[in-house]
């Protein structure tokens, strides 16, 4: 896989009409039509034009037909095709978003939930349509001191980019509280933007709503400029992707990592604090962005294994073969649309693998997943067999005396 910077350089300025002038365009020409991408895609069978066929159409000058289909609305940006492609074509990174953008414009009717999410994010900086002023309201629900930069702008080591789900979703807030407590106990020097923070414009949104992404990038960069910090840590692997792969095109230079690898760096200090035994059989769901896109497979597992009593069990598809929860690429707001097309939600499909492991706890590390899998659990009626927890929540549960 290419290093982040190389990818960024190759993505910069690539457009469909001048595709073949780019290095990626040349790679696309080298496609051997093996179909690995289509076969590996979790929604491949529902796409009239899976990646392999998109390349055929492109080469034949028939790409307009692909724009007119809704195939790429079934792409959840899971990076599977890209990871498996023997020619290392950066499908999810470059070609698919360019095509998806065109499909979105031509779609006869934009699915209502998705339209609302886009409009909300543009207006309020979060897809929930909640007041931007209440973005940090959750910090009043814990005893841990949390610094908001607007109130105390002295330089800080870590800008903790909390993101929308952790700020507003009740289950996301559980992870926000857990993370704050862990950062505090580890004595990390951190602060948040609070009401000034807006959605980073995650990989999904960045791919099919370039205007929204640009608006968010412009805004967030103008806020970052106001403060002095060394690096960004975020719980949301989608935000990690935004900062790592897209923001650098706009003169953004901060090192960014996700909360899981950040906590893992401090494991030697964290492990001794985990004094409470949790007698759980845990299975971990690899987030697409954290795993396939950024290679963090071992860190989440090491954190879980540091909890006394926890035993890990793997699902049928794991690590780079993990199946997406279905929330990426806009999928978070397309559940109704999928249902109308009689397509099973990926979270429901994935849950069957979870249940097959016999685990008591499904551990996750991406804020989309808690709500998606909890929905799936309720739908399937497995409430008494499995609980869904963010890794940070499990770590906090294992802290003795907290």
């Amino acid at each position, binding site marked *: 896989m290419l290093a982040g910077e190389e990818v960024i350089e190759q993505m910069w300025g690539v457009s469909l009409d001048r595709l073949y002038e780019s290095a990626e365009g040349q790679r696309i020409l080298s496609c051997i039509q093996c179909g690995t991408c289509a076969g590996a895609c979790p929604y491949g069978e529902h796409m009239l034009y899976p990646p392999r066929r998109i390349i055929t159409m492109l080469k034949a000058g028939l790409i307009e037909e692909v724009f007119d289909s809704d195939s790429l609305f079934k792409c959840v940006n899971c990076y599977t095709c890209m990871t498996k492609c023997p020619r290392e074509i950066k499908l999810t990174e470059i070609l698919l978003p360019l095509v998806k953008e065109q499909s979105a414009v031509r779609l006869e*009717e934009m699915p209502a939930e998705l339209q609302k999410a886009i409009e909300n994010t543009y207006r309020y900086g979060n897809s929930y349509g*909640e007041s931007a002023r209440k973005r940090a309201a959750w910090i009043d629900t814990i005893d841990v001191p949390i610094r908001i930069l607007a109130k105390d702008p002295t330089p800080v080591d870590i800008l903790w980019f909390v993101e929308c789900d952790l700020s507003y979703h009740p289950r996301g807030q559980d992870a926000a509280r857990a993370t704050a407590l862990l950062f505090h106990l580890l004595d990390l020097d951190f602060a948040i933007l609070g009401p000034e923070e807006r959605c980073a414009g995650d990989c999904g949104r960045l791919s099919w*709503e370039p205007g929204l992404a640009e608006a968010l990038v412009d805004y967030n960069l103008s806020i970052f400029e106001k403060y002095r910090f060394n690096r960004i840590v975020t719980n949301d692997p989608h935000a990690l992707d935004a900062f790592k792969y897209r923001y650098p095109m706009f003169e953004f230079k901060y090192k960014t990592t996700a909360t899981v690898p950040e906590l893992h760096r401090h494991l030697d200090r964290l492990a001794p604090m985990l004094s409470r035994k949790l007698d759980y059989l845990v299975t971990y769901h690899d987030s697409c962005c954290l795993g396939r896109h950024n290679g963090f497979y071992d860190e989440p597992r090491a954190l879980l294994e540091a909890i006394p009593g926890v035993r890990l069990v793997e699902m049928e598809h794991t690590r780079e073969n993990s199946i997406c929860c279905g929330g990426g690429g806009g999928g978070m707001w397309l559940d109704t649309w999928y249902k109308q097309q009689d397509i099973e939600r990926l979270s429901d499909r994935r849950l069957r693998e979870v249940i097959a492991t016999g685990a008591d706890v499904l551990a996750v590390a991406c804020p989309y997943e808690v709500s998606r899998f909890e929905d799936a659990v309720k739908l399937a009626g497995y409430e008494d067999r499995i609980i869904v927890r963010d890794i940070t929540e499990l770590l906090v549960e294992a802290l003795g005396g907290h």
Partner: protein
Amino acid sequence: MNILVILKQVPDLVEELEINDDGTDLDRTWMRYIPSEYDEHALEQAILLKEEHGGTVTALCLRIGEVDDTLFTAAARGADRLVRIEGDFEGISSRDAAAVYADHIRRGNYDLVLTGVQAHDDLNGPVGARLAAQLEIPYVGVVSGMHLDPETGVIHLHKEYPGGLLTVIRTELPAVVGIQSAVKPPRYVPIAKIRQASKSAEIGEETAEPQSLTPGYTVRRVFKPEGGGRAEIIDGAPEDIAARLVSIFSEHGLVR
């Protein structure tokens, strides 16, 4: 055909509403405004008509809070001309606003005026009717569909009544129509298009001094509903709430 769409800015209910010190109006100091939902339907309906029959769509806003975003979004959706009227309009009654709109319309050349049937900040709904009265042209409100016959310049308006009745009302143009909903929900426009519009679209500026027409009305008191003292709100952690509920139930002999 030239269509005018009136877009009103109303308080954004996503933010907490505060009442001013006199208790006669909302506190508008930090108020955030958004376009009224019904007006967005009026705009959509206007653009659908334009797409079918040609012509132009003009979007008109009184300066209340930040209106440029509303106008640029209208341009991105398909409005050809944007007009912002400057003046002291915060909290203006729909009756006084109608006079400002009428003045603009008399100077223009419009065949059809569309506006939302009502706005959630006064719920009076008369702006369209008053406007039509001042211009001495027909008004039809609560419309949820329309059909234009370009040959005859006659418009057929669809209206829904309680009890499952539908009517089609025929009127000549020019006319004012109060829109309940467009035939289709307001369309999606890529944000890039809105941003593009905000860089390239021009807003025509006019000024007006609103007059308080008499007889008018005054708002005597604005207040939040007062509790009757019959409800107990239980706050706290889920466990504490549950414990409190159990004790209430057992007090009333519902559980043992």
